[in-house]
């Protein structure tokens, strides 16, 4: 019987049927037209749905743009090869609930540097300096920067506009080489190649060997001890040993235990105060394991020598582990994102309900369309397309709110973090995709219900 039906059906089919593709397109255009018409029919309901989607998607996108900025990988190519060693110099009674301090004191830092157990290693601490413009009557400028060792630039892939870093020999020679930022170079030298020129920092002369082109990885993984991770680009990088020779105290955090009684620079260096952040570059898991053993051996040696009164307690975290451990993502950003997503979810539940009401109110029309030959799939598609137009309108509104929100995000987050949130092309795209997909997903059930309207029940004359 079925076979006979097949051959007969072919005989009865309409003579001129366009190709399926153009038919599909034409039907989609038809549904779109019906959808827009339907949206105009119930302006209040439509406005409500569009507003809900718009608000929901915008809240999510604004908080997402901030979260994305603060939770990103600042050095994607190398984050798994860069490690910051920690050695517990405070002991179980004074350390951070069992965790070693987040930085090293001078003694341990220098010991790790001199042991040279990694492919590359650097020590760093922040500096607050003054720049005295030469031969001018201008007031001195403030310049922030870091005391670092030669490997810093290669390890962290610092890009240079002019010149480059300095050598290990310069480290040994405790030289007065400095690298400056493009911004400072612009201020002092009008952006010209200043390599070889002299710069006065805090009353001492330094020789510029390199100018960094814009480099400010955020979060600033390499200095989470002194910064929250979102500071402005540093102006200056100075030879670590030279900064020590000039007895430059850290411009960042300094954390001590017990009683502090030093009265001189040497006394400070030998104290248990931590203020130096060490970094090492390790290429393979084997290297990592070897370095970890080295750290444990070092701590054990200190215990044997009587400097540590406790068993070795060391850590070796890579960049992402370090960001996580230091809670770089502000809890506010996470909570805001979660709450915004919850908000969006509620907006979608709201939309499901309203779409259901809107679609089922047209049960009669659906019955007529079914009687006139629409398949369930055609009804389903029609209503999904209608929901898609709601999503699109919601996306437009959401984009508007997002743009407003991102520009006003400074009200909601700290300025240094708010600055990172920006409305780029990917966020615009994401806003639309999320708005449309979410709305269409919300319409699955209402459209399914619409497609399963019983035509006969709707059409019986009573």
């Amino acid at each position, binding site marked *: 019987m079925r076979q006979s039906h097949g051959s007969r059906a072919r005989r009865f089919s309409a003579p001129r049927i366009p190709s399926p593709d153009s038919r599909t397109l034409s039907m989609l255009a038809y549904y779109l037209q019906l959808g827009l018409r339907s949206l105009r029919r119930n302006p209040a*309901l439509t406005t*409500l749905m569009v*507003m*809900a989607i718009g*608000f929901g998607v915008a*809240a999510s996108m604004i*908080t997402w743009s901030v979260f994305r900025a603060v939770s990103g990988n600042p050095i994607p190519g190398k984050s798994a090869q860069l490690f910051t060693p920690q050695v517990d110099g405070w002991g179980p*009674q004074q350390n951070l609930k069992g965790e070693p301090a987040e930085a090293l004191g001078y003694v341990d830092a220098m010991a790790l540097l001199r042991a040279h157990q990694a492919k590359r290693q650097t020590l760093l601490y922040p500096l*607050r300096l*003054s720049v*005295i413009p030469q031969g001018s009557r201008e*007031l*001195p400028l*403030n310049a922030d920067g870091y005391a670092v060792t030669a490997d810093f630039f290669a390890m962290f892939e610092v890009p240079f506009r002019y010149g480059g870093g300095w050598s290990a020999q310069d480290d040994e020679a405790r030289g007065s080489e400095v690298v400056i930022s493009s911004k400072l170079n612009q201020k002092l030298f009008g952006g010209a190649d200043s390599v070889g020129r002299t710069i006065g920092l*805090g*009353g*001492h002369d330094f020789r510029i060997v390199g100018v960094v082109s814009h480099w400010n990885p955020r979060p600033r993984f390499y200095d989470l001890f002194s910064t929250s991770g979102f500071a402005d680009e540093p102006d200056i990088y100075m030879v670590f040993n030279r900064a020590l020779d*000039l*007895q*430059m*105290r850290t*411009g960042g955090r300094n954390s001590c*235990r*017990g*009683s*502090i*009684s*030093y*009265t*001189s620079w040497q*006394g*400070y260096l030998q104290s248990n105060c931590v203020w130096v952040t060490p970094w090492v570059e390790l290429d393979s898991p084997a290297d990592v394991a070897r370095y970890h053993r080295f750290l444990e051996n070092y701590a054990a040696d200190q215990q044997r020598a009587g400097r540590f009164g406790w068993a070795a307690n060391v850590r070796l975290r890579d960049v992402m582990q370090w960001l996580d451990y230091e809670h770089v993502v502000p*809890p*506010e950003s*996470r*909570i*805001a994102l979660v*709450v915004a997503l*919850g*908000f969006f*979810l*509620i907006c979608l*539940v*709201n939309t*499901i*309900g*309203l779409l*259901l*009401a*809107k679609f*089922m*109110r047209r049960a009669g029309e659906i019955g007529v369309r079914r009687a006139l030959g629409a398949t369930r799939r055609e009804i389903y598609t029609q209503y999904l397309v209608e929901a898609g137009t709601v999503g699109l309108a919601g996306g437009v509104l959401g984009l508007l709110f997002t743009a407003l929100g991102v520009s006003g995000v400074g*009200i*909601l*987050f*700290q*300025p240094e973090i708010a600055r990172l949130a920006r409305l780029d092309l990917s966020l615009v795209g994401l806003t639309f995709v999320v708005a449309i997909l979410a709305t269409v997903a919300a319409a699955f*059930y209402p459209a399914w219900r619409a497609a399963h309207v019983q035509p006969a029940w709707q059409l019986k*004359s*009573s």
Partner: protein
Amino acid sequence: MHIQIRPILAALRRHKAGTLLIALQIALTLAIVCNALFIIHQRLANLSAASGVDEANVFVIANMWADLDRSTEQVDAQVRADLLALRQLPAVRNATPASGYPLRGGGWDNFVTMTPEQVKPTTDAAVYTGDEHFLDTLGLKLVAGRNFRPDEVMVMGTQQAITPPTAIVSQALADRLFPDGNALGKSFYAMGTAPSTIVGIVDPLHRQGVDQWSNGYAGQALIWPLRADDERGIYYIVRAKPGQLADAMREAPKALYAQNRLRIIDPVDGIQDYATIRHKVYDRDRGMAILMSVISVVLLAITAAGIVGLTSFWVGQRRKQIGVRRALGARQRDILAYFLTENFLISATGVVLGAVLAVAFNLWTVTRFEMSHMSMAYVGIGVVALLLLGQGAVLAPALRASRVSPVEATRSV
């Protein structure tokens, strides 16, 4: 008025999806709004924390030295000259050197112990340094003891750690160290080998920082009579005469540059009044409070609108049924009561689920973000608010339903 629950439940069973959606929306809204209210309340409490400072008249100058190659004596001479110049300004009441100031957003803090041998600290105190003008300059209220004498003020260079023998502490620190209340004249150790004796108590005095870790040490601070002549820089805290803040803030940097040009006072944030300082240090709290408020308001509005929308649809769908009821003698208020009761049943289900979700969400933030436990009062307020919201939202469509004419019973759909 007699309301029958059973027919309502029967009707709801036939509108499972809509009922479920409204209940779910109310539940989620309750969960979010409770927690948002809790966060808002907490953050607003932070925003209004007292600093102890005469905020209307005090401002802070962040002064950096350009020439780092000077001895402590040279720096100290400069500091004393600067202070003299500041205090002589007509708009200025007083000035003090300082290593930090309340609400700075972080700074120097020391562990405090009762004996030098004690390893586990008793508490942690924010450390302020200043001369005998510190109390008057900040406008701190001395509640016991005395101010520093000029001869007690010591000088501390960059590479030194000095413990002065006297200190003024905040009431909160005094209470923490000496719960019996007789702190005056007693000594403590703050990471020094020598003790400091409490000569005065001020109340209140906020710490420099507002970070979460310091919440357990709120208001615990000590002041040492020190001019911390750090070669890198120093803060000058200045108190203007009443109403002359703007004049003082304008004149102060001129006076300092007149003393010596080799210094840096950042043109953007080198001089800040307390309004700015407070605004900056609480930007996280304010931001969260604003964000949560906006989300709560919009959320409640959307939920209310959603209830209006769905109920209107139901009313439209049941016009004939309502007409039949009216024809059979139901009064307008019976119809009204029907829809109000229906909404109440749905909302009640929603708020029960929502209360569970709200507590669960709070517990999650407690474990994940070290936030504190939410008082059930917030859930209570939220439940009442959402039930009222539901009843309010359903009122308009229910009134419309109550006005359906009995004639509708005879019309075809």
